[in-house]
């Protein structure tokens, strides 16, 4: 595995305006993604986990500029995507493809599978009609379907098969990066493992880089090399997957991991039960946004926003418990605040 970053995200932000009244005056912002930075190396899988409303899907969409970032830089393969014109961006999407959660909603029910799979090639002007049709059949086989499926319609397939079609469509343009947003969460367990295995095989065969967005921590661990944890629009921890699951640092990550039900009745675990709900992102708590639910809350957490910094090599966390500031600095800061 090379260690060259294929994608580098710096200080990415997405603020959605909250409008009110007849004239639609902007009264505030929902900070869906607030100052998120990370990178993805070529050939690896970066998992992004978090609960609903944490901004993981918004982040995924901004990387493809399906949503325009409010601020920040997305560097892909040496190019800054945020500075491209929409025409240049359209061309670049050949290299970045997306797989969505609901394979039923993302496949046009009126089109045959052939037409659906051919479309990305037509859009990007790749190959002639005959070659395209040949390629469609080839990719159907690659994702575990059969060439004769090309003439069928989406409703004739089961959920798992439809997700295979969604994956085939993403592969058609021979992309470098695939952003998969909850690709297996709508599937039954026995089908989920088939699709995960398929994605791993394809990664090896086509040297793909994945960003795998999901809420299921078991699935993310299985498929990811590195994992980032998001909470209320912020990346709170990011590390090698083994490291993150064995030694989580952020109190939120710890609680999240302990909350996942383990399919083993003999498993003894210390469950950290978080109190309360995820706060409203339109009105996030001051300082560290997790302080309202945090079992290790300190005074500083209500005042200062913790920065993501590297605690150990490759393991970054945004929490005052691990702040690079010494105790004295914190005291000084508290005095000045």
């Amino acid at each position: 595995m090379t260690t060259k970053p294929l994608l580098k995200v710096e200080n990415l932000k997405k603020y959605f305006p909250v409008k009110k009244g007849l004239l639609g005056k902007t009264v505030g912002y929902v900070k869906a993604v607030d100052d998120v930075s990370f990178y993805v190396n070529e050939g690896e899988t970066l998992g992004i986990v978090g609960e609903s409303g944490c901004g993981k899907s918004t982040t995924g969409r901004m990387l493809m500029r399906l949503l325009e970032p409010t601020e920040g830089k997305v560097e892909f393969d040496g190019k800054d995507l945020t500075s491209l014109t929409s025409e240049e961006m359209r061309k670049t999407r050949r290299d970045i493809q997306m797989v969505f959660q609901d394979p039923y909603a993302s496949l046009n029910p009126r089109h045959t599978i052939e037409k659906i799979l051919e479309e990305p090639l037509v859009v990007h002007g790749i190959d002639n009609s005959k070659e395209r049709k040949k390629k469609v059949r080839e990719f159907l086989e690659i994702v575990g379907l059969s060439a004769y499926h090309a003439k069928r319609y989406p409703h004739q397939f089961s959920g798992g098969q439809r997700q295979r079609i969604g994956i085939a469509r993403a592969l058609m343009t021979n992309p470098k990066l695939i952003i998969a947003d909850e690709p297996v969460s709508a599937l039954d367990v026995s089908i989920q493992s088939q699709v995960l295995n398929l994605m791993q095989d394809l990664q090896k065969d086509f040297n793909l880089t994945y960003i795998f967005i999901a809420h299921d921590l078991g699935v993310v661990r299985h498929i990811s090399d590195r994992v980032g944890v998001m909470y209320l629009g912020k990346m709170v921890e990011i590390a090698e997957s083994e490291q993150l699951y064995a030694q989580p640092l952020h109190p939120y990550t710890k609680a999240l991991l302990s909350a996942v039900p383990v399919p083993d009745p003999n498993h003894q675990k210390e469950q950290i039960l978080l109190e309360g709900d995820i706060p409203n992102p339109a009105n996030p708590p001051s300082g560290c946004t997790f302080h309202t639910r945090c079992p290790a809350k300190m005074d500083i957490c209500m005042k200062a926003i913790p920065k993501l910094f590297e605690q150990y090599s490759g393991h970054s966390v945004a929490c005052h418990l691990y702040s690079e500031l010494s105790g004295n600095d914190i005291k000084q800061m508290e005095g000045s605040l």
Partner: protein
Amino acid sequence: MGERKTVLQVKDLQTTFFTDSGEIPAVDHIDFHVKEGEILGIVGESGCGKSVTSLSIMGLVPKPPGKIVGGEILFEDKDLLKMTERQMRRIRGNDIAMIFQEPMTSLNPLFTIGNQMTEAILIHEKGWSKKKAVNRAVELLELVGLPRAAEMMRDYPHQLSGGMRQRVMIAMALVCDPKVLIADEPTTALDVTIQAQILKLMRDLNTRLDTAVLLITHDLGVVAETCERVIVMYAGQIIEEAPVKKIFEDPQHPYTKGLIQSIPDMRYKKERLYSIPGNVPKPGSIKQGCRFAARCEFAFDRCQKENPALYETSDVHDTRCFLYDKEGVEMNDNKTLVKS
């Protein structure tokens, strides 16, 4: 565990849907019972009949197209299927209550929580004053761990989060102190940290109030953490039943084994996940033989022809698989009983 009385017994239940494309036996001859104060889990993938089972018990199967075509559902020795709608209404809520996956669709968005709670109480407790009902409602909201319960009585459902709404639903289900609580995927729509809270609440209520819980879920993790006994369903049938420890330590049916091995484990990384080939069959699509045969790596001739019975493999463990048919062992001479 001690001898506990059976509160609910389902005998040879068959619920069929009559559709344009034919008869679909969604629940196909199932038998099980729920004991006083226990948590029984029913697991299975989509279309296995787990939800139709719970709706059948509550008398809520949409008809048409659905119809209970056979069997008995005995609650304290009375057959629910023979009851009139009036009698059934008295059972629902009073004796058996149910909570659903999406609490928002089960609450009326136009009425306050207080309104809906007191309505439920006044229906079941005839002769209570409004004030008494309000006090009881607040008490129940506190019981399910809602902070500032008295204020919440004035809130509308949309003002609450998903986890809070599910707590309100549970409080409402507890209005009449039911003997059995049916929870159909109660945490599926919730985030993990909220799911952990709700599961803990259900376990606490089960111990404190001694309410039997029938927990229907697709999540084996939830089952492992919450249930005492488990029923695994596949294509409308019960294919395995055992205490929760047995199911995970010694799963017998190839489907149960496959399912357990398919789950990515959070504790360690598996190089590759086991996967059951093929797809979950559409209900009613398999007419002959074992319903799992087409996906089963152990399938032999007999599996294609006959539907296996539920064999008793120990006094607490039943499995619907010919590999466990002691009398028919000679029929699977080339397949030994392999345990993975």
